Structure formats: C-alpha cells, structure tokens
C-alpha cells in the first residue's frame, strides 16, 4: 500500500512539474531556453533532403538556420513529414516551434495553427515523361500519382474531373521519392505536386521529363507556427522581411533555385514588406 501511495505521489508530482515547466507561449520558451526547434522535411528535395554525404540540407534548412542565427538561439532541426508537420506545432507543448516544410498556407490549416507571411511562391503542376502528354486535356483517363497528406490529391482529382475524366485515378504515395519512382517505372503516366518539387525530381534524370499544362493551383508557402502566439509570429515575420531587405533571402534562394542550380525556378514575386 505504501508503495502505491509513493508511486501515486511521484506521478502527481511529475505531472505537476511537467505542466509548470512547459507553460507559457513559444516566444518565452525559445528566448528562455535559447533553442529553437524547427520541423523540416528530409525527403522533399530541394527544400529539405539528405544529400550524398548523408547531410540534411535544403532551402528550408538554410532559411531555418538563418532565422535561428538572427534570433541568436541554438538551432535544432526535427524531421517532419506531410502527415506530421501540422500536428507537431499543434500539440501542447508543441514538438517544434516552427515548421518549414514546403507547406502551403491554407485557410483550413490556418484554423488549426498560425502562419508567417509567405516565404516562397509555388503552384501545382503535372510532370510526365517527355512527349507523352501534350496538354492538360491529355491527362484525362490517365493514371496519376500524388502524395498522401497534401491537398495535391484533391487538386489533381478536381482538375482531372474538369478535363473530362469522370473517375480520376489518383494514387497517394508516401512521399516525393516514391511518387517519382512510380512515374519512372511507368506505373503512373503523370505525377502532380508543387512545381519546384517536380523540377527537382525531374533533375535526377535530366532531359527525360517535362512539366505539362498550366498551374492548377497557387501554393504560397508559409512558416507554420503554434496558434495564438503573437509575439512569436511577429518576430518570425520581421526576421523573414529583414532577410529579404538585406539580400540574404535571395542569396539562399539562388543557392537552391538560381539559374545554375539543378532546380532553376525564377523568382517572380515579392515577399510582403511592411514599412
């Protein structure tokens, strides 16, 4: 009996201290602990992926590192995927303080978590083997691959329906690599997701694949942040704007999307700036 009592008290104590330790908003915690945890994909080239030296790199990685540097805190990356990137900032306490994982800022998502200003502008397209598909119309009736956990499936299905395919066959693979493998081996005739990811995939075998059709959706990327933490959101927004202002943003951008890279993607928009 005594054992039980002690155990119960210990458990109660643990729960109490745990609650106390993690109380307070993200801003206080990051500034207090001097550590920022960033959720980043490790399968989404060129945003976050493992390179040939088994190093974890990418555009999102560099952005997150730069943000951490400017905040003057230690940087700690955490692997997220399409299915976990929302829930990781949603839990209490959040598993990560910010998510940079090529995530489109959508209204449904904004109901659950907060977003920074748009830090990257993308749109959804289709990728197919060169010469196989001429325009969007040809996609009707074809097997299409996409990714589970994104709205790409929903968008692609809607687009195929619009093109006259009454029963669109869209398979949701686990991630970019599997999706591309499906296209490469011929089990689907086209794949669809955000165009930068498609460009990066096509670059693995240059000259064999091409983007087809128009943009079927706008995909403005935002940094996912825990809900209702104004101070934290402000400082992230300011940091991103500062990076744009002094040119660091374009430096990072050109490192991954410049004309000489594997994934050239010209910058056509401007980050929202507040005077």
């Amino acid at each position: 009996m005594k054992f039980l009592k002690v155990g119960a008290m210990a458990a109660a104590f643990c729960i109490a201290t745990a609650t106390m330790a993690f109380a307070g908003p993200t801003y206080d915690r990051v500034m207090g602990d001097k550590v920022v945890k960033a959720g980043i994909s490790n399968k989404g080239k060129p945003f976050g992926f493992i390179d040939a030296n088994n190093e974890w790199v990418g555009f999102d990685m560099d952005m997150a590192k730069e943000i951490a540097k400017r905040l003057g805190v230690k940087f700690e990356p955490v692997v997220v995927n399409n299915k976990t990137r929302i829930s990781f900032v949603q839990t209490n306490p959040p598993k990560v303080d910010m998510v940079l994982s090529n995530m489109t800022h959508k209204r449904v998502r904004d109901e659950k978590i907060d977003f920074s200003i748009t830090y990257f502008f993308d749109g959804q397209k289709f990728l197919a083997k060169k010469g196989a598909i001429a325009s969007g119309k040809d996609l009707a009736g074809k097997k299409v691959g996409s990714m589970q956990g994104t709205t790409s499936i929903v968008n692609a299905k809607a687009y195929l329906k619009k093109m006259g395919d009454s029963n669109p066959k869209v398979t949701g693979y686990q991630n970019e690599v599997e999706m591309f493998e499906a296209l490469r081996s011929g089990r689907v005739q086209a794949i669809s997701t955000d165009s930068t990811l498609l460009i990066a995939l096509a670059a693995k075998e240059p000259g064999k694949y091409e983007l087809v059709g128009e943009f079927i959706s706008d995909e403005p990327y935002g940094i996912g942040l825990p809900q209702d933490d104004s101070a934290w959101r402000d400082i992230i927004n300011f940091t991103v704007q500062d990076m744009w202002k002094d040119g660091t943003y374009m430096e990072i951008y050109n490192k991954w999307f410049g004309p000489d890279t594997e994934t050239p993607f010209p910058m056509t928009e401007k980050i929202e700036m507040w005077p």
Partner: protein
Amino acid sequence: MFKHYMNKTWVQNLLLALMLGLIAYYFGFVFHFDYEFNWSVLYTETEYGHMGQMLLNGLNLTVSISLYSAVLALGLGTLFGLARLSNFKPVYAFATAYVEFFRNTPLLVQLFFWNFALPAGLPEEVKMKLFELDFEFWVATLGLGIYTSSFMAEIIRAGIQSVPKGLLEASYSSGLTFNQSLRKIILPLAFREIIPPLGSEFLNNMKNSSLAMTVGVAEVCWSAQEVEALTYSGFEATAAATVIYLSLSLIIATFLNLVNARLKIIGNDGVPIIRRIADVVFFPFVKISQLLSDLFWHLGRAPVDTRTLSPGAAAWLKIRTNSWAAIVLAAKVLFVAFLVGIVYQTFKGLASFNYQVIWDNIRALLIWRFPHGGSTEVFMGLGGLSMSIIMAVISISLSFLIGLVVGVGRTSENRAIKVPCMFYIELIRGNPLIMVIFWVYFFLPPILKIQLDVFWSATLAMTIFFGAYIAEIVRGGIENIPKGQVEAAISTGLGYFQTMRKIILPQALKQMLPALVGMFIAAFKDTSLAYIIGVMELTTAAYSINNRLMLYPFEIYTTIAVFYFICCYLMSLYARRLERKLSPENVRLAM
C-alpha cells in the same frame, strides 16, 4: 478483513465501477486536452469531400486485401506445409527455404522488395501489363498472402506431425490404405490441432493488411492518415480507425470461437449454447463434407490382392503401376530442373549485383552515422541494424515485465484485477502495431504532457504492444500448470504471492521460453514499422539510401533482407533448440 471483502463479487464490481468513474472524472473535468474535438468531420461533407466515405472505402479495401490474401495464404500454406513433410529431399529443401525465408524477414521489407525491386527486374512488356492492373493493390495482397502462408505452412506441418505415429501404424495394420488413413485418421485429428492457430493467423493477416498503406493502397490506416492531413482532426480519425480494426478483430474472433466450439469433443450430457449456434452456422459445411466423403467412398476401390488376379489383369496392373511410377519420376525430374533453374537465376542475379554499392553503404546500414551524429540524434547518430536490435531488446525486456504482471493479473479470480488486464490485452491485440505506434506517437505526449522523440515513441509503442502478447503467453503458461499444485501449495500454508513466486512461475516461465524467444523475433522484425514515424532503424536506413541512389533497389533491399534473415533465423534456431530441450518427444511423421 480486507481479504474477506475483496473476495465478494459486489465489492469487486464496485471497485471496477469506481475505477471507471475516476477515469471518466479525470478526463471529463480535471484534465484539459487543449484540443477541440470535432467528431462531425466523420459524418459531414467537408471542403475536401466526405471523410466518413473515405474511411468506408478504406474498410472496403482492408477487407478485400485481407480476404484475397487469406485465401492465397491458405492455398500456399497447405501446399508448402505438406511439402515440408515430403520424403523427396528437393521438395523438402525448397519448401523449407521458402518457409524460413519469408518467416524470418519483416513483412514491410518484403513489401518494399515486391513493390520497388521486383518491377525493376521484369521485362518491359510484362511490367506495363502489370501496371495497367491495380498494381499496388495486388502487390500488397500477394506480399501479404506469401508472408502469412509461410506461417500457415508451419502450423499445418506441426498439426499433421502432432498425430502420434502409433495411430498411423495402427490404421495401416487394420488394413486401411494410405488415402483412407489420411482422410479418416490423420486429417480429422490434425485439423483439431491446426484450426485454432490457423484462425489467429487469419486475424494477424487482417491486422498486417495495414502495412499496405506504405505502398500507397488507400486502406483504413491510409484513409485515417489522409483524413488527418485534410481536416487536422487526427484524434477523431485515428479513433475511428481503431474502432474499425477492433470491430473487424471482434468479428473474426467470434467466428473463430464458433469454429472452436464446433470442433470440441463433448460428451452426451449438456450441449453448451455456443455449440448449438456453431452447429447451425456450420451445418452446410458439415453436410458438404459428408457428401464428399460418401462420394470418395463410392469412388474408392478395395485393395487388390495380386495373388488372385488373372494373368491379363496382372499385366494391366503392372503397366498401370509402372506408368504411375514413370509420371512421378518425370514430375520429380521436372521439379529438380525447376529448382536448378531458380538457383541458377538467383546466382546469376547475385553475380550481377553491384557489390561496390553494398560495400559503400554497409557501414550506414549497420550503424548509420555513429558516432558522428548531430546533437539532436539519439545515441550519437546510431541507426541501422544496431538500432533495430537495441529497440527490440529494450521493448521486449520492458514488455516482459508488463506481460508478467498483466498475465498473472489476467489469471486472477478477482474481477477488479482481471477485467482491467483483460481490457488491456484485448484492446491492444485487436489493433495493428501501426495503430499503437500512432497513438503513442501523436496522442500520448499531449495526454501525459511529456515530450517523446521518435525512437522512444516507437520503443514504448512496441513495449505496450508486445506486453499484451506476452501477457497471453504468461497466462497460457500459468494455466498449463496442474491445479493440484496450487491447492497443494495453499494447503501447505503458502500465500498467493509465495505460491506464484516459488511454485507456479518457475515452472511456467521455463515452458514459456520458446514462445518468448519467438516473441523477440517478432519484435525484432516489427522494429521495421518504426520506419513509419521515421526512426533510423535498418529499414529506414535502407529506404533513405535507396532514395538517394535510386538505381540499386535490388542490392539494398536484398542486403537488409539478408541482415534480418540472419538475425531472425539464428534466434529461431535457438528457440527450436530450447523447445527440443524442454520437450523430448519429437517424432517426424513422414507422408
């Protein structure tokens, strides 16, 4: 005084109600979830379509995969189970290799192999033909069927071998032919041994179908994840999937119980109600098998006495016997040729491997980045095979403790202890490991307000999962000890815990050892599921390397299959030795 009241049923029920009330009170009033429950996503139209519909589609696919693969597994399992009893060595060797290989590698790795590596090795036209079908679905079904068949083969072999040799000799000497004794003596007895474990294989098969999500089949697990991704109602989606799996398990378990009731040998006095239900349910099957049996009887021929035949008839008989022998010989030659072909193809394939790739990555597969990992990685960047072994060792050691406590509690006469233990066991065993991993990874941290990284989440999930299975092993071990021993211990004045510690557990644990080693093998194989949440164990390591290289799926997946196989096979050899040591009677019945 305390003891006296604890023995009363109403006190036990009251305690149970109290526990339930406390839990309800805690989560209803004290605890704050920080989460807005929105169950309506499951039954209303959302922006991205009807989520309930999506889950139902998932259910449909789960049921189809389970059914198709179960039929396939039963067919292949019977074939290879009988082949394992063959006297013809090449057949025996082939069947043994098949069974051992597929039993001792994880299903996930097999699925990856079929899905990624196999198409790369096929001719272009065949590949295109396959892709026009529902390729992912059939890969999952075939992979699952083959995996389950290797377990069924072992069950069927063991069931047939469990028939005592004396019975077979007795039936031969009473003049029955081989076919007759097979139909009348061996199969009826063997079936009683085979059916119960075979049934639980069907249950496992259904639960394993959840792995089909990794190749992109939209079954229940996949759908639940998609619902979460689209609506962010992860808790609701996962709860719905759990309920679906539990109901499916319950339906299968009920059916199995009916089958067991039908098979039980009962006396004339008092037929239990479940037997009556079972009799009604299985009436058509029994009738059909009776009809078939009659048919066989009419078709059957009495054994021929060669001494009383006319010369013509004797010559005819000789021709028939000889031509039959020729057919058998031809079949044997064909089979050997087929086997040689397979072995040749395998060696050719192995010879054409790019061993440089394997050699370059073997370090990563064994230990990943150890000891150069970043500060955020567990165990200094350890991963690969060593990570899998560590996970299995930690989770099995911890789940042994859980299993011991819960298993002993499950056999308790006190309802206040027995019911919670039963609840835990059945809840966990009714769900696939993937679901348990999801619960632990996504929902345990917010409920307990703790932080768990992927490694510890996966290890904890496996601990909870295997705890339930080990509890059942412990219960089985305890119930095997004759009741007289307990009575003798109590009457010599030992208390409950003394009896358990000094008399029951030492004997029961010894009997349980082989089963526990088997559980360890299962745990080691199931570490591959940690891939789903991104733990850097062997499968994830192979997967990441394959992603980067893209051109050598055969090399990478074969290498890790060999790693898994070596570890599991050595352990299963050890388990078999233990078993032999603990039960000396083991006669191999030949067919």
